[in-house]
Structure formats: structure tokens, C-alpha cells
């Protein structure tokens, strides 16, 4: 128990101190667990819709990562955000779900299916961003280029790309909420 828990704490504190690689590893590590939770609670929502909800949860975790207290364990914090966002997402989709947090401990991690559930939702939302922001999110997300490379391609400074990316992700979170509701 302490083994795995300890790793998440280390990764997230490194991430919050500015280590982007540690942050990527943190997100990779928690995603299967969060996916398992979403699927277990979703009932007959379908895997594609579950993946949508999962992405909403990940966006929320991302935008609220400064609310984690470095001295506290990650799991209660992470599960509280997940619970809040999952209930919210299901309500928005016309479903009700009851999520006792204690159940989360028993959920098994789930890997993405063999046929990745590519939800059209997120692509649509990115299309609603302004041209340049959409371009930045696509380049870094889909093409996997670095912030510096994206800056060169778009003739923007690295700092400007960072700020634009952050704004774009914030906007995406808001857009998704509005879109579903």
C-alpha cells in the first residue's frame, strides 16, 4: 500500500515543483485507476462516454493540482475530485449515481480498450477554441511536439506558448461543462 501511494506523492510533488516529466508520469499512473472508477460507476454509459468523463476528471485534476497539500496523501485528494466530477458528469448526462468514496479502494485499474475509445467530444471542443490555441493543443497533444518546437512552428516565444496552452486547457474545461449541460 505505502509503496504505490508513496510513488504518487513523490511524482505529484515533483510535478508541482515544475517537473513536467514527473507530472506526465503521474498522469499516466493515475489514469488507469481513474478509468476503472469511472467504468465501475458508469453502469451502461458505454466505454466512449466513460472515456469522455475520464477526460473531464483529468482536466479537473490538472487545473486544481495546486489544491493538493504536499504533506497529505494523494489518494483522498484525487478521489474527492474524481467523485465530484463523476457525479457532476453523470448528472449532466441525465443519470444519477451514488459514489461512496470507500468503494474506490476496491476498483481495479482499467487500461484503455484495444480499440481506443476516441470520443469525438474533445476534438469538437478543441475546434471551438481560437485557431492558434487549437493549433497549440493539437501540436503538443496529438503530434507530441515540445513547447519549444510548437513555439518555433507558430513563431511564438516559449513563454507565450505556455500561457496560451494553459488558457486553452482552462477554456476546454469550461467548454466541456457548457457543452454537456
Amino acid at each position, binding site marked *: 500500500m505505502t509503496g504505490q501511494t508513496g510513488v504518487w506523492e513523490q511524482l505529484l510533488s515533483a510535478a*508541482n515543483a*515544475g517537473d*513536467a*516529466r514527473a*507530472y*506526465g508520469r503521474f*498522469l*499516466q499512473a493515475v*489514469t488507469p485507476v481513474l*478509468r476503472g472508477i469511472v467504468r465501475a460507476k458508469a453502469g451502461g454509459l458505454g466505454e466512449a462516454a466513460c*472515456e469522455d468523463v*475520464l*477526460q473531464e476528471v*483529468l*482536466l*479537473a485534476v*490538472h487545473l*486544481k*493540482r*495546486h*489544491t*493538493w*497539500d504536499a504533506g*497529505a496523501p494523494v489518494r*483522498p*485528494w484525487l*478521489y*474527492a*475530485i474524481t*467523485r*465530484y466530477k463523476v457525479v457532476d458528469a453523470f448528472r449532466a448526462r441525465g443519470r444519477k449515481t451514488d459514489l461512496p*468514496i470507500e468503494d474506490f479502494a476496491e476498483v481495479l485499474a482499467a487500461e*484503455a480498450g484495444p480499440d*481506443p475509445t*476516441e*470520443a469525438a467530444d*474533445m*476534438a469538437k471542443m*478543441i475546434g471551438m477554441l481560437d485557431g492558434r490555441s487549437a493549433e497549440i*493543443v493539437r501540436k*503538443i*497533444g*496529438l503530434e*507530441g511536439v*515540445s*513547447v519549444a518546437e510548437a513555439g518555433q512552428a507558430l513563431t511564438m516565444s516559449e513563454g507565450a506558448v*505556455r*500561457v496560451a*496552452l*494553459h488558457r486553452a*486547457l482552462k477554456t476546454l474545461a469550461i467548454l466541456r461543462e457548457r457543452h454537456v449541460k
Partner: protein
Amino acid sequence: MKTDDLIRALAADTVQAPPLRTTLLAGLVPSMMIAVLGVALTLGFRTDLGTVMLTPVSLARIVLTGILGLASARLALLLARPEGAQTARVWPLAAVAVAALGLLLWAWVTTPAEARQMATVGKTMTTCLVTIPLLSVLPVAVLHYTLRQGAVTAPLRAGFFAGLAGAGLSAAVYALHCTEDSPLFYVTWYGLAIAGVTLVSTLIGARTLRW
């Protein structure tokens, strides 16, 4: 967009909001200084503040409202974290309430029956009921802003403690001016002013602290 692609985009975003404690202190400290300055310049501090500090029953008013404000601000900060709603303990507030009611009872018993009404109504009830909510506006706004930067999972409760915190601290500042030393007065009217601010803050919080 696949989830892995989203994760890549998220990991590349290194812009991060400051810790909540920093946000709160950066707003709350200046707004309390403004409150102190505002009271000093408009109403003026009471002239016998030195004596007040040595008189337990007068001092109690400043100490109790101050503790109420600080303890509530801590709770609000805790509730700004998503898991805070599960760990928040409210007994320090209950202790303040019991102490205030104890003072009220003690004053009721020790004040002669014919003087009770005068002691309760006092002379500055209106000033008190207007000034405390007025002083609360800025600190409560700062608390709500901090909560919105956080990840509140219990909006009603977070709004409640934000109101209690702002009003408690403001009442402590107002007490530097107010000369009504009978608990019959201050427990009643400070309490009412604090309750009013808290009610409004709770209602606002329930609506605006969802995310």
C-alpha cells in the same frame, strides 16, 4: 482526442496557480488592515483600549470574535481542498459558541433585573448592525475568491465558514471602537450581525462555489 494525447497536453502545461494559503493571506491581511484603518479614521478607537485589555469581560469580545474568525478562516481554507469536507472538525467553533452563551447567561444573572433591558438595547445597536456587515464585505469577498481558486466539494459549508470568518474578524476590529461592554449587548448584536453576514455568504457560496 485520445486520453494519452490529452495527458501529453496537460503534462506540457507548467503554468500553475499559487498555493491557496498564499492567495488567502495575500488578500486577507490587506483587507483586515483596511478595516482597522477604516475604523480608526471614521469611528475612532475607544480611548480606554489599554484598560479594556485588562478587563476580561471587555477583552472577551475581541478574543472570542477573533478566535471565531481565525478558526473559521482555517476551516474555509480546508474546505477549499476537495477532500477537506471529510476532515473538517468544527469543535473549536462550538467552544466559542458555548463561551459566548456562558457570558450571556452570566451577564443576565449578574445584571439587576431593571437594568437588563437597557444593557441589552444599548446605545449603538444600529452602528453595530451596520458597521460589522460593512467591514465584512472585503474579507468575505477575499475568502470567496480563494475558495473559487480551490476545489470546493461542499459549497454550502464553504460559504458558511467564509461568512463566519469574515464577519468574526470584522467584529473583532469593530470591538476596538465599540464601548458597549455588557455581554447582554455584544453577544446579542455582534452575534446577530455575524449571523446575518454568514447567512448571506452561505447562500452565495451554495450558488457560486460549484465548478
